[in-house]
């Protein structure tokens, strides 16, 4: 994700920010119902088990010595949330982790309960201080 001056992730609704892209963005991370509520269908903010499972354009170039092929902007950083295993389950009372069907190394942070898109963005933003840079 993009790194802010304070070292934490940038909160926002653009690519590589702490948040989700919503319709009508063609690359929306979530689907919305008619009332603007987030549909609970497993979609959410994409995450991976380890930053080495990211596509090369998402890994900052400065990590080339440890990750040959890294081609991401140096304004990005690899962040880790928590210490637990990368398994489906609750992250807090408002967010959960769901794994993708085709790959257990990648998943989505999804709403744990029905909420509006604004509430989801707030819930994600509230985790900001918990994300730690992990370049190891």
């Amino acid at each position, binding site marked *: 994700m993009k790194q802010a001056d304070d070292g934490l992730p940038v909160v926002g609704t653009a690519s590589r920010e702490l948040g989700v892209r919503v319709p009508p963005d063609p690359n929306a991370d979530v689907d919305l119902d008619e009332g603007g509520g987030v549909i609970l269908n497993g979609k959410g903010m994409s995450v991976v088990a380890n930053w080495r499972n990211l596509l090369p354009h998402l890994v900052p170039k400065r990590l080339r010595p440890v990750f040959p092929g890294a081609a*991401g902007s140096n304004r990005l950083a690899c962040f880790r949330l928590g210490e637990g295993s990368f398994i489906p389950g609750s992250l807090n009372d408002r967010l959960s982790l769901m794994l993708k069907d*085709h790959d257990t190394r*990648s998943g989505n942070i999804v709403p744990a309960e029905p909420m509006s898109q604004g509430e989801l963005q707030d819930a994600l933003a509230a985790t900001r201080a918990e994300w730690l840079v992990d370049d190891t």
Partner: protein
Amino acid sequence: MNERQFFQNPDFVAYVRMLHQLHGAIREGWDETDKGEALRDRMDEPWHNFSGDEVASLSGISADLDSLSGPPASDIRTIAADAKADLDSALEARKTGDFIGALEILRKHAGRIPAASLAYLRGQIWLEAGEYPIAAEFLQRASDLEPDNSNFRYIALHALGKSDPLKAADQARAILAESPRNPPELVLKAADILADQARILPSDQTRRELKSLIRPLQDSIFRLETSGEGQVHPDLLIRADGLIDACRRQVG
């Protein structure tokens, strides 16, 4: 996830092409600009459709693309004996269309293959995969690392002709301008490229261009015959003769 993977997956192919562009941007120093970020934004699009194996493969390809710049990773002069059998497997994989497998084998042995040969082999795989701009860069890299290798120069020009005909024509003209100093098979390839290009020119220019090819082609035939190379590669002589005939017919 897409049912088709790797080169059968259009998203994978699209990502590979953008990754190649991004590496060019990094080398040219514009990847941190708005244009570079816009390119990276486009690369986000297919992410959800990739399998873990595809992501791993793309990281490997990205590392391969890193090798296109900077000093060669090793100063090995010959291919290590224990890598040769695996390299045969890579060639076999390439022939059967398993381009990912072939690239992986090369990656596994990258530290035991001379940098120019490695770039050449990678270029051949990309050529076979039909990804000509990527092939052309790897083959040019091979040629740059071993400028005296006429085979590398030949295949690099061939790939450039497929990916960027105008740039290839410029190179071909430079080769023909110094044709006696260049290997006859390279002169022949250069003439071939310019003859192709000449077809889209106005007719008077076409004639002029084709006429200018006849002399270097004749010289090349002479050199092929006198060096004995024409006997080893009679196809070169046949092609040179054919090209001269075609030029003469057009010139009138």
